[in-house]
């Protein structure tokens, strides 16, 4: 599929918490607010996965959230990139030996999902901005492949 021209100007992100400790979630909001202000690049936090280009994913996927996470993933229109924010999202981190954890997320998503890992516990806002840039490049690459 081909992405429209407007795509490389504005990137809309949807934040999905699957049982994280709130640290990364607060840092995501900190990245949106004036100190870091990613909105000046057109990156906007939206209220529905159906409006989003990128899923910001935090947390190690608790048992109760597993199906809801997958549902939100499938509700997001293609082409999409998943950004896994924080160590517990990418490896389940300190929660590795819990009975209530189903993650990490990359074992649950379809194999062709495009995933960008942003590490840190919690992730620093600078690193989130860097991750969004990576996602951006990835999406542009996707467009290049489909030309």
């Amino acid at each position, binding site marked *: 599929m081909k992405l429209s021209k407007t795509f490389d100007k504005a990137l809309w992100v949807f934040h999905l918490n699957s049982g994280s400790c709130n640290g990364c979630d607060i840092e995501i909001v*900190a990245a949106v607010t004036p100190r870091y202000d990613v909105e000046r690049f057109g990156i906007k936090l939206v209220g529905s996965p159906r409006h989003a280009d990128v899923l910001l994913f935090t947390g190690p996927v608790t048992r*109760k959230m597993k199906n809801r996470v997958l549902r939100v993933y499938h509700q997001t229109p293609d082409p999409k990139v998943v950004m896994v924010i924080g160590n517990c999202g990418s490896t389940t981190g300190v929660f590795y030996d819990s009975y209530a954890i189903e993650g990490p997320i990359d074992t649950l998503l379809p194999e062709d999902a495009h995933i960008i890992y942003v590490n840190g516990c919690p992730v620093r806002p600078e690193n989130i901005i860097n991750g969004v840039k990576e996602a951006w490049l990835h999406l542009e690459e996707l467009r290049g492949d489909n030309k």
Partner: protein
Amino acid sequence: MRNEGKDETTYEVPIGPIHPALKEPFLIKFKIDGERIVGAEAHPGMNHRGIEFMGMHRNPYKVIPLSERICGICSIVHQHMFVTAVEHAASIEPTNRARYIRVIMSELERIHSHVLWAGVAAHEIGFDTHLHFTWMIREKVMDLLEYITGNRVNYAMWTFGGVNRDIPKKMYPKIEATLKYYEELYGKLEEIFLGDPSIRLRTIGVGVLTKEEALNLCGVGPTVRASGVRKDVRIDQPYAAYGDLDIEYQLPSLYGYKDTGDVFSKTLVRLKELVQSIDIIRQCLDQIPNEDINSEPKMAATLNKLKKADGEGIGRIEAPRGEAFHYVRLKEGKEELDCWKVRASTYNNLATYAPMFMGEQIADIPIIAACIDPCIGCMDRAEIVDVNTGKRWEYEHEELQRLSVKKTEKLLGGLKR
């Protein structure tokens, strides 16, 4: 109450569990009669990570970083409680300097948590300018926390018998500068949250919790202090260095307001606690003794002592959201914790939702849900099920927030006339 088909006007509105912007997964089911809320039911568990189970399979030193990650906003609180509980169980005494450093860190966290809350509250009633303003000034205390500990969140500051890092004299000027910054800005915050006529219209008389209900439901922290309940662990059962410091219960009646227990008084209490925290940190910097920061610097020695210890201990702390505690039991010859129980303040405060929501409008859900400062809260997806036809509508969070904003505008319109 989906099954009660006879009741023609009552709808069920589940809100949650996925919220796009600020909070953790959490589900509340509301029963709605027209625009009025007639029932509220909390369904937690989306964020259950089995922390206590994991803690019981690790040695106490490995549990400290885990306890920090119970919550990313109050990571200091959980560290503090866990370390205090283990020290209590194994009879380890922290040094006096460490006690003062613990107080300074706790109060810095209270500042960041209350400023954060003010922003969330402003966002929920439709003042995004204030959200951005408060989050901008919050960065200043985050900078200070990073300057002292090396990380913005999850500070790894606590250890058994003391703290990991000292606050040397050369750091004082920067701490003082930050405190001054907040003192100067406080007037503006007060003007916004207590003086602004539209915020007053949205908060006065909304989400009322009477003193009796607050006592019956065992609410904690600013949520019940706003109703006039004198409850603060820092004064009732002083821990760390709080016994040496001059602290007062922050009640609205102290400042010439009535202890009404509505959202306005909750805002007032939190703002006044900001000033109190600044004062406490100043007192600490004056009184802090010159000592070692850890009573037993060798980790192996402490670990050995913990292995031999046999007993139980509790840590009670006044978190920014209210009283919380950890219970720990150690068994002789066992390296792991024998038992670990965590009770966070939101757990108590959730019960206060029921009387606060009762009789309020759907548009008031966001601000009332935010007013207890829930550590798990979720306002994303509201679904309305018509009991008679089984037809469903969905409210996205944005829709809900739009309703809330619309109400503010409506009230403002009335104000102009």
